[in-house]
């Protein structure tokens, strides 16, 4: 690592704040156009109602299509997106807290990328829930009349705690750098000075920051586990839905979230390394380390998945089996098997390659695997939610096809998240400046 620091200075890290080319403006403009399209789609949904989506009641009133006719799924790609973003958000503090608690100095270089990912992903998860509501103007009722028995409220509590905890954690880890930026970028001096809030940079102060961050990291790890466990309870505590009552559901969700988050951090680290030529800072060793973690959690996730499928196929209840059949042999079979083979099988093979020696590690190929994995994990969440709702125990199988408006709104969270991330890297260094100081 030390060898790399000679060629990669603080100025190299700061180029993400100062260097802005034509490609950047074209990219941001494209994102703004896409965001405008998303806002229009959301406006359409708000003014017209959820009828513009493909989401329907489980069954309709008898006088409409006859008695007991299943017509659709009340949850679709918005809730899928919610679980996806919650999963992505896991990486941030998980990686950053691990670096701090286990003293993994080598990975400090990716810690902030991960923290910002959490900060950006959590609001997108919250937005996805709001999109799913027919009357988001009543959301404040959660704070007035919310019931403590409801996992929805546990969700609100867990997400709020995680979000506020992340803001506090990120600010404290960033404060020293903000103070330094006030000196390095004179044009923005006033902004940074105010934000640094009388930071002195003394050894005592730095020590105090480190101690506080250590305790905060320790507190945040269980919060992180809670957030995704609670998301699984939103499903597990619903009434009469096949495949939602597995005892490993919470673990399954937490591990899935870690896979998703670690894959996202790998993708980001690779993109930044490629974009700013940070090869000597984000070394192959760092990327190999992240891919090692990704491989291990992926193996655990696949194991849990197989355990769940096997139990259902052999001894599952009739409603569990009905959903499983629907996925394995029914209309969702092409999605399910493509996800299993291309989405999980191929990335697993790519990630397993370094087991046969360091020279088998290919950063670019692993980047492709991390992207494929996140797409597959999005689809996996979709196959957890929709087939169970389409196969209610007492009614016929329904149909769910998301509309273009729905897809535009769902994709909007990705454009917004990218814009927010870009805004951050234009204001603050995405790598802790302490890393180059050694």
């Amino acid at each position, binding site marked *: 690592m030390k060898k790399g620091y000679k060629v990669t200075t603080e100025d190299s890290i700061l180029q993400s704040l100062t260097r802005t080319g034509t490609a950047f403006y074209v990219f941001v403009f494209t994102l703004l156009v896409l965001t405008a399209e998303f806002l229009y789609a959301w406006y359409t949904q708000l003014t017209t109602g959820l009828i513009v989506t493909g989401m329907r009641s489980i069954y309709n009133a008898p006088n409409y299509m006859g008695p007991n006719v299943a017509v659709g799924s009340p949850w679709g790609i918005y809730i899928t997106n919610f679980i996806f973003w919650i999963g992505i958000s896991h990486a941030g503090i998980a990686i950053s807290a691990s670096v701090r608690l286990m003293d993994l100095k080598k990975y400090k270089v990716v810690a902030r990328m991960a923290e910002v990912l959490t900060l950006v992903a959590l609001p997108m998860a919250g937005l996805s829930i709001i999109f799913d509501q027919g009357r988001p103007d009543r959301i404040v009722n959660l704070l007035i009349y919310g*019931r403590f*028995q409801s*996992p929805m409220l546990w969700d609100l509590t867990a997400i709020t*705690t995680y979000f*506020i905890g992340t803001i506090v954690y990120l*600010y404290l880890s960033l404060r020293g750098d903000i103070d330094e930026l006030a000196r390095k970028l004179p044009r923005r001096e006033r902004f940074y000075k105010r934000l640094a*809030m009388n930071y002195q940079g003394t050894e005592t102060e730095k020590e105090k920051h480190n101690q506080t961050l250590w305790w905060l990291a320790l507190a945040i790890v269980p919060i992180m586990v809670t957030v995704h466990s609670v998301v699984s309870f939103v499903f597990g505590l619903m009434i009469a839905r096949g495949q939602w009552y597995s005892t490993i559901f919470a673990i399954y969700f937490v591990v899935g979230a870690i896979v998703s988050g670690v894959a996202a951090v790998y993708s980001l680290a690779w993109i930044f390394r490629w974009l700013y030529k940070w090869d000597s800072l984000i070394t192959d060793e760092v990327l190999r380390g992240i891919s090692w973690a990704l491989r291990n959690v992926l193996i655990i996730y696949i194991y849990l998945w197989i355990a769940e499928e096997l139990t259902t196929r052999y001894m599952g209840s009739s409603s569990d089996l009905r959903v499983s059949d629907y996925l394995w042999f029914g209309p969702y079979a092409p999605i399910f098997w493509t996800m299993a083979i291309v989405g999980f099988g191929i990335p697993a093979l790519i990630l397993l390659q370094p087991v046969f020696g360091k020279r088998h590690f290919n950063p670019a190929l692993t980047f492709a695997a991390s992207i494929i994995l996140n797409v597959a994990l999005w689809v996996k969440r979709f196959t957890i939610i929709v087939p169970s709702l389409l196969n209610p125990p007492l009614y016929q199988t329904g149909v769910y096809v998301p509309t273009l408006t729905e897809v535009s709104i769902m994709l909007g969270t990705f454009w917004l998240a990218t814009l927010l991330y870009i805004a951050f890297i234009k204001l603050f260094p995405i790598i802790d400046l302490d890393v180059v100081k050694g």
Partner: protein
Amino acid sequence: MVNSRTAAVLIVGFIILIAGLSLWVLGDQTSSLVPLPLASTGVPWAPLLWVCGIIVLLTSAFANILDPKHYLLWLVSLIVGYLVIFGIIVVITGYLIP
């Protein structure tokens, strides 16, 4: 080391949290576990008190490092910011929804 200011913030946060939770739980008039927040609690705004308690507890990290003026600035920003998010959603969607 945790200073007295941090300890005070932790205690205040904990009291708010417990107060919110107590009002929330004691005021509840239902006993069954249902999946949607349809019924209401007996004491309105108790969930908000609970959330504010969590925010105050988490800001104890700031209290350990920042001076009182900046600590209060952060605390107020976080609580007001949190409520403003809800406010914006309610106002804008309330205006657009027919």
